[in-house]
């Protein structure tokens, strides 16, 4: 009898919890504002505990990353060393390389940030789950002027955009490696506005739409945001470098592989451009 009552109660509990979960999913899918505010409040309540724990366990996480990522770091160093040697060799052979390097550094010196108000945020969580490799959370939010869709950059260039309505003191950044991430781009020196999309973790971006087959593009060309009318990104933010060119004869388009200029793997600080295309564009 007692077991029967317990089974009945546990079934009732299960149904109640399932209905509650399904309701929350539905409301969230419809961007129900009171639910989002509640989420923010709950998250803010846990935030001090989490910050404290972060400080305590940071050395452990760093040590773990050092141990497990040593091989990766070594091969990255090797790749950088080879790249440096190549640059040095090129500089000796061709003095134009020096001029090119200088102009590249000008581009990477964040001139695009100078005119646009911005907020520097610290990455507080890279990702907490195993399915959110394309987002990070930063410690700046609505009270700092951050809004949904604003571009996020580092010294290397664009790394993503603010995803969803930010909390008071925190917000989520979707990285440009996310396969669902799309950005209007321009190959420097051309006029065709094309669409680049994320290629996945550790993979280059792909430009598959908008670049006419007769547009002159070469491997090594720089790619920047187009900033065309109503684009959510201002023009001229570095995206990356063209490393491969393919042709879609059927659609008469060029398909580009673009290696991002900014590293999204080990982000510490990022800059959110407080850019509103309707006001600033």
């Amino acid at each position, binding site marked *: 009898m007692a077991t029967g009552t317990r089974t009945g109660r*546990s079934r009732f509990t299960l149904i109640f919890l399932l209905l509650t979960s399904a309701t929350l999913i539905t409301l969230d899918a419809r961007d129900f504002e009171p639910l989002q505010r509640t989420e923010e409040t709950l998250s803010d309540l846990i935030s001090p505990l989490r910050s404290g724990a972060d400080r*305590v366990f940071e050395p452990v996480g760093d040590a773990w990353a050092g141990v497990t990522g040593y091989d990766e770091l070594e091969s990255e160093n090797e790749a950088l060393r080879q790249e440096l040697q190549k640059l040095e060799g090129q500089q000796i052979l061709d003095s134009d390389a020096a001029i090119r390097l200088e102009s590249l550094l000008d581009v990477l010196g964040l001139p695009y940030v100078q005119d646009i108000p911005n907020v520097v945020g610290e990455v507080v969580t890279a990702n*907490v789950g195993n399915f959110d490799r394309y987002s990070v959370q930063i410690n700046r939010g609505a009270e700092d002027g951050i809004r949904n869709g604003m571009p996020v950059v580092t010294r290397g260039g664009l790394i993503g955009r603010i995803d969803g309505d930010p909390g008071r003191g925190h917000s*989520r950044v979707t990285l440009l490696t996310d396969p669902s991430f799309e950005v209007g781009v321009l190959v420097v020196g051309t006029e065709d506005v094309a669409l680049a999309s994320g290629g996945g973790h550790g993979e280059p971006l792909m430009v598959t739409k908008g670049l006419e087959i007769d547009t002159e593009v070469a491997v090594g060309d720089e790619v920047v945001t187009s900033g065309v009318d109503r684009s959510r990104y201002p023009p001229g933010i570095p995206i990356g470098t063209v490393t491969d060119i393919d042709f879609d004869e059927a659609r008469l388009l060029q398909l580009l592989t673009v290696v991002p200029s900014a590293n999204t793997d080990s982000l510490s600080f990022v800059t959110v451009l407080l850019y509103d295309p309707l006001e600033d564009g």
Partner: protein
Amino acid sequence: MSLTSAYLRSALFLLTALVLHLALFSDLRVLGVAPEVPLAIAVTAGLVGGPERGAIAGFAIGLGIDLYLPTLFGLSALIYTVWGYTVGLLEERIFRSAWWINVLVTAAATAGGLLVYAVLGELLGEVNLYTDRLYTVMGVAAAYNLVLSLPLLGLWHWSWPRLLGEER
């Protein structure tokens, strides 16, 4: 120990587990995969406390982790509720488990839970869940949770000693 005290212990355990997952375990990655502590919490709660407590613990920790995931709010809560309940039911009716069976069940349930999460998430319109990487995630997370299951089972026994004693 009073009922209130047992519930307070459970709440404290869940909150601590959530904070530890966010601040520590999510950084301890092997092949880019972190332990699935919240899922392990739901499964071990079901194994120790039965279907009802498994469902409640799964729901609570699921909502907590949903606050920090880009997927739909409530998705983890839904799956962890079902998982906590199902494992609790299986434990009551089939396993009547030895500790090593509980450990293996936690690992298997972790892999299964992740598969269900990815499939259901994709059906609900989420992206990047059901990918080539899913099976690596399932394998590594299951191995991680295999190790974590023993302390978690012990902590649930600490949370509900009198309640469990009365029921047996």
